[in-house]
């Protein structure tokens, strides 16, 4: 419950129309795309400018109310779920693109700009913003920054972090900081910007973002390779990387995923194949032609069952779009879709596939695997029913065992979805209690009261 005084102050500061308190509204503003997680906030605010955010933080500070930032709630680790109640601060009405600076190749936006809207706006000016998370049609830029979202183009172009140049952020005491700028180089003091990226809303609330833009590739070629055996697909990926070819996209789908995606898009994907790779090379036409040839040679060498080339840009886009729906399409099969984000060094890809197959067998589960093969970033997805307790137990045992080996190989428990609520337990296993302790100290330096998205990334002391 929010104290009455606090409510009055918020009403005065923001006006009633920016506050939401009806039960039916609160009920739908306490979830994201992470299965099984839901909490109800006490209040939701819709700021329309940075000053509004400052006012909300000031009241939260004075009354010690937890604050959880939210964009479109497409997260996959529970980052925007208000597990301690309090205020959810919905940033998706702050959605103006403030500037596209063609001289400095930057764009500056408010927090709630939709990723694809930015992509389209800069594309109109002949520029390119590469990060393209699966949910780009609705995900917001600040959400991408806070989770350091990846995407299909990560392999060649990197992830959100690689494009953030400057951030405006409201801290827990109500003060504002601007960090970074349009300068390409900047080593003035601590790199707060880099600390804030991927901080999942635990250090402050981002209200404005300046990103780097690049010229788009002149041309690209898209290939679909089918495999009788998923291990072979893994080998193909390792060989392509070893041949010093860096495709812009190298995505994998296993048989279960292929079938679910085909059920949805119906574009004639081969239902009987064990796996497919979607590979795209882009850049200067001469380079693209050369890489395409080398790619085909490797796919021949590892004995891919079939290799097809996209007819045209539209055809290629259809394939990428189809891949983006993989997770949601898998959700057709069962009521609950448990998704993970294991990432391994790329040389370990084939071994990881073997391991997933073994564990699936061992725990008697239905698993669909897809992901950014070129990044070693896989999404083994257990298709289950949250009402079946035994199955849920087996699913968790599956992930525990998988992660143990992933960490032994030098991998990570989260490639791009963040730790949030869902993976707090795994984080300590990866970075050790010392690592978690340092993170806690950083957190308390930014937010001594602990009001900024509490309960995320690491357990509170004593929890």
């Amino acid at each position, binding site marked *: 419950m929010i104290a009455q005084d606090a409510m009055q102050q918020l009403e005065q500061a923001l006006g009633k129309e920016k506050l939401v308190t009806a*039960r039916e509204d609160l009920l739908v503003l306490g979830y994201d795309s992470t299965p099984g997680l839901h909490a109800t906030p006490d209040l939701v605010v819709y700021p329309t400018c940075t000053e509004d955010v400052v006012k909300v933080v000031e009241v939260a500070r004075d009354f010690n109310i937890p604050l959880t930032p939210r964009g*479109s*709630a497409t997260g996959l680790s529970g980052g925007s779920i208000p597990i301690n109640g309090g205020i959810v601060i919905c940033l998706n009405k702050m959605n103006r693109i403030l500037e596209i600076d063609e001289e400095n190749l930057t764009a500056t936006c408010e927090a709630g700009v939709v990723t694809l809207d930015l992509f389209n706006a800069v594309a109109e000016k002949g520029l390119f913003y590469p990060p393209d998370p699966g949910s780009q049609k609705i995900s917001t830029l600040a959400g991408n920054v806070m989770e350091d979202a990846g995407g299909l183009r990560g392999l060649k172009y990197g992830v959100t972090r690689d494009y953030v140049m400057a951030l405006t952020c409201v801290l827990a005491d109500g003060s504002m900081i601007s960090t970074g700028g349009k300068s390409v180089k900047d080593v003035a003091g601590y790199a707060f910007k880099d600390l804030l990226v991927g901080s999942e809303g635990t250090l402050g609330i981002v209200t404005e973002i300046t990103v780097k833009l690049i010229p788009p590739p002149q041309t690209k070629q898209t290939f679909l390779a089918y495999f009788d055996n998923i291990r072979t697909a893994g080998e193909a990926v390792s060989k392509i990387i070893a041949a010093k070819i860096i495709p812009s996209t190298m995505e994998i789908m296993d048989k279960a995923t292929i079938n679910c995606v085909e059920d949805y898009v119906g574009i004639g994907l081969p239902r009987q194949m064990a796996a497919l790779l979607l590979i795209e090379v882009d850049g200067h036409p001469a380079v693209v032609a050369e890489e395409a040839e080398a790619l085909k040679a490797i796919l021949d060498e590892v004995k891919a069952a079939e290799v097809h080339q996209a007819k045209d840009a539209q055809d290629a886009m259809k394939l990428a779009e189809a891949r983006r729906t993989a997770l949601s399409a898998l*959700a057709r099969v069962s009521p609950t879709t448990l998704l993970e984000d294991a990432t391994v060094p790329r040389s370990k890809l084939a071994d990881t596939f073997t391991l997933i197959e073994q564990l699936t067998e061992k725990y008697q589960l239905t698993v669909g695997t897809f992901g950014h093969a070129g990044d070693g970033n896989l999404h083994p997805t257990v298709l289950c029913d949250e009402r079946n307790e035994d199955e849920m137990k087996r699913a968790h045992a599956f992930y525990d065992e998988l992660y143990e080996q992933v960490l032994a190989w030098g991998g990570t428990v989260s490639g791009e979805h963040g730790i949030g609520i869902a993976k707090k337990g795994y984080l300590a296993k990866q970075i050790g209690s010392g690592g978690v302790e340092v993170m806690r100290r950083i957190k308390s330096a930014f937010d001594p009261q602990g009001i900024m998205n509490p309960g995320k990334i690491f357990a509170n002391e004593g929890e």
Partner: protein
Amino acid sequence: MAAQQTCGNFTILDAPEYEDVLQCMRCGFCLPTCPTFVLTGRERSSPRGRVALARAVSEGKLDFNQAMKEEAFFCLDCRACTTACPSGVKAGEVMEVCRAQVHQQIPAPKWQGALRNLVLKKMVPNPGLMETSMVPARLYQKLGIQWLVRNSKILKLGPTWIDKAEGMLPELHRPLRPQLPDLSLAQGEKRGTVAFFLGCVMTLLYPEVSRQTVKVLNHQGFDVITPKEQKCCGAPHLTEGDRETTREIAAFNLDLFLDLDVDAIVTDCAGCGAALKEYEEILAERKDHERLSLFHQKIKDISEFLCERGIRTEGLKPVDKSVTYHEPCHLCHAQGISKQPRELIKAIPGVDFREMKEASWCCGSAATFSLKFTDESQKILDRKLENVRKTEAEILVTANPGCHLQLAWGLREANMPQPVLHITELLGLATPD
């Protein structure tokens, strides 16, 4: 543990299936396709939010309250979310079912209930009564009263919806149903026989459109049987939450049409087509599942049917016009028919087809939505008109009477020159008499 039926705070009759709401994994892919979410930015007015609310009611966490009623009717039922959902959730259908809950759980004032029963249970299922009820409206136009009313601006004094409803009324002609012969014969080489499902709005408000539909079918080589006893398809009842009457009507129409020896049952109304294709689910309690699925297979929208059979272009006259196409929600989203109308338009000699942006975005008509939510409907319509304007096309084609009414009214109000034609009217222009 086996999956169990949960009803929670829904009544048992006509409640959303718990499995259907559980299927949503909250990815949010539906949000940018939902006109009411884009308009309001409000999660509860999005498909994801609405399904979450239905789930909360199912789980007993929320009463079926006023907000549920609002969302059930604020949803345009445009089904864009169904197209967008990779997980196969049908948020629009869930809301349609919730409308039936509204009438069970939130009692309306007596006079409203009586009026609703009169219209939905007595009038609409009876084509003769409907035709008689239109006589005053035709007289209203013929005697010049309409001219008087429009020029006196007297309607500006009443609620906005009356003014808009009056403004939307097209020029009325005698209803088509009694005029159409029971059998009209194919021309040229005969390719088959179809039954014609003539929608209420088509026969009453757009008789000349459906006349063209029959003409086109005949010219394309099909005998057309029009059973006169046919009743309304039940769509108005579904949208108003009267599933009981829908079931009665559906059973009647199904038996009537299945007794005919025809290759297909064709309709030129997207709303009817969508409802007819839902009979299988609406009548799922019936034991004769084979008959239900046979009926489903036979229902064809006119574009779907002509494309399946292949359009005969010989003998078509050129139509030298630029044309753009608005996709009715109940055609593209509810029935998945999107390519076929474009193929037909492009098959007409002389036509310069221009794709509009967001062709499959709702026009804001959505049954009675345009009258219940005039402001919101106007905003959705404005977005559509802007996209039409940018094509600079001379003709706007669509394939559903609801869209037709809304678009024709909108274009006129916005002083835009394009006439709205049903796709069979365009084909009719190319087809010799």
